[in-house]
């Protein structure tokens, strides 16, 4: 395997990783007697003390339901919840806090758009463009919508390095499409798509664009105004926040034209037996008691990420990829999938060891304290394209180190020894 790492673009980490690691209580744990080496950040990230404390503070100091009580606890919690929305809005470059709808995760975000905008706008014979890089969360909702309304799903392929086939995408956009649902960053391979260019091209072709940024917002600077997409979704749990937090972003005008997703409390302004009037944005889309403590945790997480600097985190992860890729290339029997260069990628490295199934690899790694994902990564379309049933995936975040890359390489040797390959 040829790995080109351009000397001129050699990424250099400027993070104080030791100090960062001290903020994450879980990273001092041991697994099977070995220090934990957590390399499954594309599945979910660990949480810093600051996020845990922000959430504990709600429960210990002022917990009460939001938007309802007229007493101090409720007002304090409501302010923290709406404050978190403002922080998230700033973090992704939204122009208005009301453009941020809190949801449980990116999956719920895509479903929100599919069930509301999708059902109003996508009709029989319409074309929805998707890609083989999509996580199931940004494919299955569109596949099911297409089935229900009689629309057509058009798939865009990748090249052998896992880069999107822009030529194919351009050709399909020229034929017309109602929607392009595309991932910003592949969770399976780490490929970063040139989303800004793609959005401009899709808009010129008359398509609405939803960007799945679940793997992007945690790892690279994302600015919705700059991207100029129509919808953007992401999960909190992959970016230091708790599971149960996440957001959909869209412009006010578009959100105002959309019908609500879920019906119930908090999303209404006036209810009579005959009819119901919807609440204002963003609450029109937030039925029932929100996961407000999780959202407040997300607010604390973006504070943390903002203070460290997402661009620096990206550079740090790339420095780990630059360290790991050539060493993997030198390891006999290892095949790496996805981009072999540092351009337009994040710290996700998918690989297989010849003669050992990824699940056996992950089991042996576990005994070494190394946590990786083995499987299809909710990317069955991509696995089919790569011609594999599963891969082993290591994915980095701001607290990972080159020493942990060495632990991974050591675990590979161990697996090969156990399997005698």
């Amino acid at each position, binding site marked *: 395997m040829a790995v080109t790492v351009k000397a001129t673009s050699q990424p250099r980490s400027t993070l104080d990783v030791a100090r960062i690691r001290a903020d994450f209580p879980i990273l001092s744990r041991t697994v099977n007697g070995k220090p934990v080496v957590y390399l499954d950040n594309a599945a979910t990230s660990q949480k810093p003390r600051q996020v845990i404390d922000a959430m504990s503070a709600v429960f210990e100091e002022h917990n009460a339901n939001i938007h309802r009580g007229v007493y101090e606890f409720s007002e304090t919690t409501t302010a923290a919840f709406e404050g978190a929305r403002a922080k998230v809005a700033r973090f992704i470059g939204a122009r208005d806090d009301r453009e941020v709808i809190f949801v449980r995760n990116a999956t719920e975000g895509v479903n929100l758009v599919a069930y509301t905008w999708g059902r109003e706008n996508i009709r029989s014979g319409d074309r929805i463009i998707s890609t083989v890089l999509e996580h199931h969360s940004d494919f299955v909702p569109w596949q099911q919508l297409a089935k229900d309304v009689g629309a057509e799903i058009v798939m865009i392929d990748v090249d052998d390095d896992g880069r999107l086939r822009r030529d194919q995408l351009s050709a399909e956009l020229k034929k017309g499409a109602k929607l392009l649902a595309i991932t910003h960053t592949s969770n399976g391979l780490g490929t970063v798509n040139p989303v800004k260019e793609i959005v401009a091209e899709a808009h010129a072709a008359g398509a609405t664009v939803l960007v799945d940024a679940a793997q992007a917002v945690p790892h690279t600077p994302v600015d919705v105004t700059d991207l100029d997409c129509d919808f953007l979704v992401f999960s909190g749990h992959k970016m230091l926040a708790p599971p149960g937090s996440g957001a959909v972003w869209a412009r006010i005008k578009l959100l105002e034209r959309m019908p609500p997703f879920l019906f119930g409390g908090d999303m209404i302004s006036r209810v009579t037996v005959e009819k119901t009037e919807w609440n204002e944005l963003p609450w029109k889309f937030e039925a029932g008691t929100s996961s407000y403590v999780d959202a407040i945790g997300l607010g604390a997480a973006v504070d943390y990420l903002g203070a460290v600097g997402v661009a620096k985190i990206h550079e740090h992860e790339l420095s780990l990829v630059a360290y790991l890729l050539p060493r993997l290339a030198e390891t006999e029997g290892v095949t790496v999938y996805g981009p072999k260069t540092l351009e337009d990628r994040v710290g996700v490295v998918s690989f297989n060891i010849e003669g*050992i*199934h*990824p*699940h*056996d690899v992950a*089991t*042996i790694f576990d*005994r070494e304290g190394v946590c990786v994902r*083995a*499987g*299809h990564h909710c990317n*069955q379309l991509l*696995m089919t394209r790569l011609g594999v*049933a*599963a891969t082993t995936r290591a994915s980095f975040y701001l607290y990972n180190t080159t020493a942990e890359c060495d632990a991974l390489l050591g675990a590979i040797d*161990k697996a090969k020894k*156990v*399997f*005698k390959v």
Partner: protein
Amino acid sequence: MDDMYRDYILDHYKNPRNQGELSGATNTYADSNPLCGDELSMALRIEDDRVADVRFNGKGCAISQASASILTEEIKGKTLDEVKAIDKDHILENLGIPISPARIKCALLSLKTLKGAAWGLPAWPDEEDTKTRAAGQRR
């Protein structure tokens, strides 16, 4: 570590017994663990209510494939009733290694596939509806 990937497990994985096609098969069944990508098919030739011969085919992790290989060795010559009586505990005992909860499905895919073949099932009962729908034959 070596408690799980013992020599005989790796031996069955690398040199599977009774792997291949079975001519004159009377009962066949195929199944998979979509989450891990383990695939297994089992073919039996039943003569006078006994397993006259057996073959399996599959790909997947060491645990799922070794489990199948060990099982095929065991059931040759057994009566259908004996095969139908094999249970989960028996399989785990056969493997003789600690299996974590996350890997239990790997270990038991062989049993599921064998049961499907022994009972002559067209599809696993509680999954029939899912499979029918997946095939686009919505009722």
